[in-house]
């Protein structure tokens, strides 16, 4: 392989990943055969409703939850086969930002120590060097290091705590960051600040992002491509503009219709969704969306639809995609 081909290869390649949880004597089919890739310096948005497996997928990518089968290739290396020290080394390159910024900071530790901890774990022994990097990253996320480093998490608002979490995730100069609902716990006015900050950090540090959220408008604001997930499977993957302008999967179309629009002239559509999502313990046969889909027929209950290209760059897993 030439040097160029290596550089163009996706940074992350998820291949037929299956993750299951035991629940008593039952099995929760959280992720059932998901394949996707994220190119270098790309943001892939991952949307879906609660329980669709999007967070589990994010965690399985980072090996915080081990997959039952399938592979996660990061920069060509299979993370699912790694253990111990090798995995720990790899984790310096991949980081995670959680939904609840306040709960993900230890309330008894000072901000400076919280942000320095990844450096200690990574073996940066020089205290002056650690301090320099903490100051640099705190300033980068818009906090004054002199004012915040000595304080405790309870002295900060939710938005500021999320800035601290971002600083902690970035202090090791990772290449890849999984953002799991990073703004859904924040107020509208703060949400915009954090989304702008993530975009700025992505450009400044050359990051590749997997951005998980349930809010389609938030996902569109930051993503180059978007993957839509339903009950453990991908429904559709497409470049952002294309997905929102011409959804191919009926579930994507339904999600788009259900969003309340802040414009009184846009009448809210009456009852766009049929029923509720089925349980991931006993997912429907064939297409998992068929029980709520207006286009479902015999074929949908008999055959699992494969993700296939319906338009250039646009993949959909549907027997009857929208034109």
């Amino acid at each position, binding site marked *: 392989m030439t040097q160029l081909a290596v550089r163009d290869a996706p940074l992350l390649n998820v291949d037929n990943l299956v993750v299951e949880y035991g629940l008593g004597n039952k099995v929760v089919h959280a992720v059932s055969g998901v394949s996707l890739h994220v190119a270098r310096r790309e943001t892939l948005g991952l949307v879906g409703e609660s329980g669709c497996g999007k967070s589990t997928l994010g965690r399985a990518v980072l090996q915080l939850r081990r997959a039952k089968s399938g592979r996660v290739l990061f920069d060509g290396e299979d993370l699912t086969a790694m253990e111990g020290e090798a995995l720990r080394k790899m984790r310096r390159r991949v980081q995670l930002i959680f939904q609840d910024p306040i709960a993900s900071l230890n309330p008894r530790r000072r901000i400076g120590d919280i942000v320095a901890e990844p450096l200690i774990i990574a073996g940066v022994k020089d205290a002056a060097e650690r301090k320099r990097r903490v100051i640099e990253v705190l300033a980068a996320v818009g906090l004054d290091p002199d004012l915040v480093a000595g304080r405790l998490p309870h002295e900060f608002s939710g938005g500021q705590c999320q800035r601290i979490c971002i600083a902690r995730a970035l202090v090791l100069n990772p290449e890849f960051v999984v953002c799991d609902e990073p703004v859904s716990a924040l107020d*509208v006015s703060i949400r915009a600040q954090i*989304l702008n900050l993530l*975009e700025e950090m992505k450009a400044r540090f050359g990051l590749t992002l997997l951005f998980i959220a349930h809010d389609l408008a938030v996902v569109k604001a930051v*993503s180059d491509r978007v993957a839509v997930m339903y009950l453990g499977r991908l429904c559709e993957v497409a470049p952002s503009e294309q997905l929102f302008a011409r959804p191919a999967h009926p579930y994507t179309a339904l*999600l788009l219709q259900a*969003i*309340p629009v*802040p414009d009184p002239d846009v009448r809210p559509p009456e*009852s766009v969704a049929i029923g*509720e999502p089925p349980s991931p313990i006993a997912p429907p046969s064939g297409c998992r969306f068929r029980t709520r889909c207006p286009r479902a027929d015999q074929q949908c209950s008999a055959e699992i639809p494969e993700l296939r290209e319906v338009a250039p760059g646009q993949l959909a897993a549907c027997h009857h995609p929208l034109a």
Partner: protein
Amino acid sequence: MSPPLLTIEDVAVELPTPRGDLRAVDHVDLSLEPGRTLGIVGESGCGKTMLSRAILQLLPKKAKLSGRVMFDGRDLVRLAPESLRRLRARDLAVVFQDPMTSLNPVLTIGTQLMETIQEHLELDVPAARKRSIELLAAVGIPAPEQRLAQYPHQCSGGMRQRIAIAIALSCEPKLLIADEPTTALDVTIQAQILDLLAREQRRRHMAMIIITHDLGVVAGRADEVAVMYAGRVVERAPTQALFKRMHMPYTEALLAAIPKLETAPHTPLPAISGRPPDPTRPLKGCSFAPRCRYAAGRCHAAKPELKSAEISGHLYACFHPIQMAEGMSA
């Protein structure tokens, strides 16, 4: 126009904290006619939930409430506890954000529904049971008879919220207060619940207050919107007028900060800098002034009062209102 069902006059709520009194609601006036929907919009800590608790007389024990809450001709602030109890659930109902915590986890759905119906409508058990089944069917619950014997944990979040709505509607209330009724729910379920509330409201000619942080939720569903910031109503208008021509810079900034589906990816959002003021340290001037791009000298020195715009019913509290005349913006 019919006389208002609910009139809130000069309501203020103060909560004692170790750092001094926190003014959660700062002299609010509102009114609502029968059959109409009022949306109260604001970010967390703006006082919208405390205001709803003041209407329901469900404030924390230590809270200090002043002003008048006139409901159906009676001042709720001065009503005896027993009369208040009879009024709540019967004429004045509420649906909370989290249906898991508002339902009792150790009682069946049937017990919880029938308890309310028997208590307030004085029906016997078979009649109350029949009515419970009708109510569950009306809020879109399949196989309502079987649901009566189930416990809340056996239902999904959307189902639980439907049950909470059924309980709230069980005594044909005149006013329903829905406090972030869909915030805990998924977007496809949110649309169903909002449709359900709108349908039942029309059918029952009930007044409704929807409290939310999401301007999108009120845009299509409220007749009138009140925007709250730091304990005060800073703008209030018929929904169409508010979205067409808002006068308060905070309303404009709040709407602008929401990511829009029609915007191209990677477009920087017009974020509001800073954060809301500390409610235990009230500002002398306009509470939004430190974050406002139009703020000038007077904004930091005096509090702007709510005053009328050119459209009747449109009020705003700002010294430098925007979009005041056609084609002009301050």
